[in-house]
């Protein structure tokens, strides 16, 4: 589904990713772990096309297409979803209005019919219920006044409504208490644990991986994948820290 080959990227002229290669197949969940400043968030932003993150070398192919040639909104329509570490607040725009416009823009780009208001509301309510988010919150402006945990739940509700092929989740576990972690983890499994879906989980800690079991774990350090393995690698990292493994 996703092939990253020798990816180099820089921000403000500073090289962050230095030859990162990674391959994800449909049906797989990959976790990327690594110390602060390793380039984890940069990877998520580069894949989703954030302005200011410049690819200087390498290639990324998503379902056979050159991902880097697409604008951010085209990447979304192609089936890529970025769960933000710090979801952005947008005063004056309600979640429902925003998500309906976004979803229908994606459907239009794919040549599908737009979803009617009624069908959309049903879908949004079902996702909010599944994630334990009060559906009333969907009427409020995007992320404004939401607690850290509510923002992350809302990100997962967005993911459920959009139903992407590939989700890149950037520290979706940060700022969550135990209950929220459990329901967000269950949400990721329900929405994305399917034969035709894939997930790239970016995280510092093992704890989310107790709920969302990865098939592969990679260690990102110094802008490259320095180690890959199965779920046991996450436990080893948790026990021993990054210092030895990333060295």
């Amino acid at each position, binding site marked *: 589904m996703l092939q990253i080959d020798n990816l180099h990227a820089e921000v403000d002229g500073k090289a962050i990713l230095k030859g990162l290669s990674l391959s994800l197949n449909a049906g797989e969940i990959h976790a990327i772990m690594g110390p602060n400043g390793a380039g984890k968030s940069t990877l998520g932003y580069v894949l*989703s*096309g*954030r*302005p200011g993150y410049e690819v200087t070398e390498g290639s990324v192919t998503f379902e056979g297409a050159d991902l880097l040639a697409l*604008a*951010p*909104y085209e*990447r*979304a*329509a192609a089936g890529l*979803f*970025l769960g*933000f570490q710090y*979801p*952005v607040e*947008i*005063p*004056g*725009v309600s979640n429902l*209005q*925003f*998500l309906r*416009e*976004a*979803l229908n*823009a*994606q459907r239009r*780009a794919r040549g599908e019919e737009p979803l009617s208001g009624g069908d959309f509301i049903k879908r949004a309510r079902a996702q909010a219920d599944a994630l334990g988010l009060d559906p009333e919150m969907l009427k409020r*402006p995007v992320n404004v006044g939401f607690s850290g945990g509510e923002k992350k739940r809302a990100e997962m509700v*967005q993911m459920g409504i*959009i139903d992407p092929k590939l989700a890149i989740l950037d520290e979706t576990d940060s700022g969550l208490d135990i209950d929220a972690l459990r329901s967000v983890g269950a949400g990721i499994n329900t929405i994305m644990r399917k034969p035709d879906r894939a997930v790239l989980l970016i995280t510092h800690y093992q704890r989310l991986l107790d709920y969302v079991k990865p098939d592969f774990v990679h260690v990102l350090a110094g802008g490259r994948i320095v180690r890959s393995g199965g779920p046991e690698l996450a436990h080893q990292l948790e026990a021993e820290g990054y210092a030895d493994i990333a060295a």
Partner: protein
Amino acid sequence: MTSLPTKRDEAWRYSDLAALGRVWPVPVPDKIIVAAGDSRRLSLVQDAAADQVVVRDYTVEIGVGASFAMQLVNTGGQLGRVAMDVTLYEGASFDLDAALIAGEGQTVELITTVRHFEANATSRQTVRGIAGGKGTISYLGKVAVSRDAQKTDSVQSVKGMLLDRTATVNAKPELEIFADDVKCAHGATVGELDAQALFYLASRGLPPAEAKALLLRAFVSGLFDGSADEAQFTAAIDAALERLL
């Protein structure tokens, strides 16, 4: 005034005088008198074609204890100018909500003079301006408080949004106060769309023009919430944004 104004006239400093010359002399102001204790409102959508020149002047007198509310969407014409000279008597109130939108080659202006002539009157002006291309938005808002107009309560809030580096927003609140027990607040900001918010919207599938339109509608939202003419205002704003983006 019979001769064409020049840039030396403060009220015309940022205007398009060449365009003005095509319609000069402009008609005498519309006169609106709100009798003591009465309440009136006026809605205006100025969305003339891009080659037109529109200058609308109003003189408003708001009597003792009376109130007047003006709601304005000003988006049309090469020059689209609305000017209001408002006088408030004892305990009167004046509310103005205005959205100004200017695209390529347009000069869109709102010029207000609010005269607190007697005590205990309130005035509130909320103005949102959006300028793109080489468009120019100007709000010149003068509040003049007479010596006897104690307990005046006056607020001006102006926010401008620049869509391109070539666009201009002029925001000039001006206070002239001769009473000593008054509240006159004014705030003016000019900025551009939040890049983070635009990327967030794009990452969910919204193309740039739709993402900008969503943020800009939010920027002017609230001005006309619950207004009897809300649908008309919304349609005019959407049409103007579509031209702009």
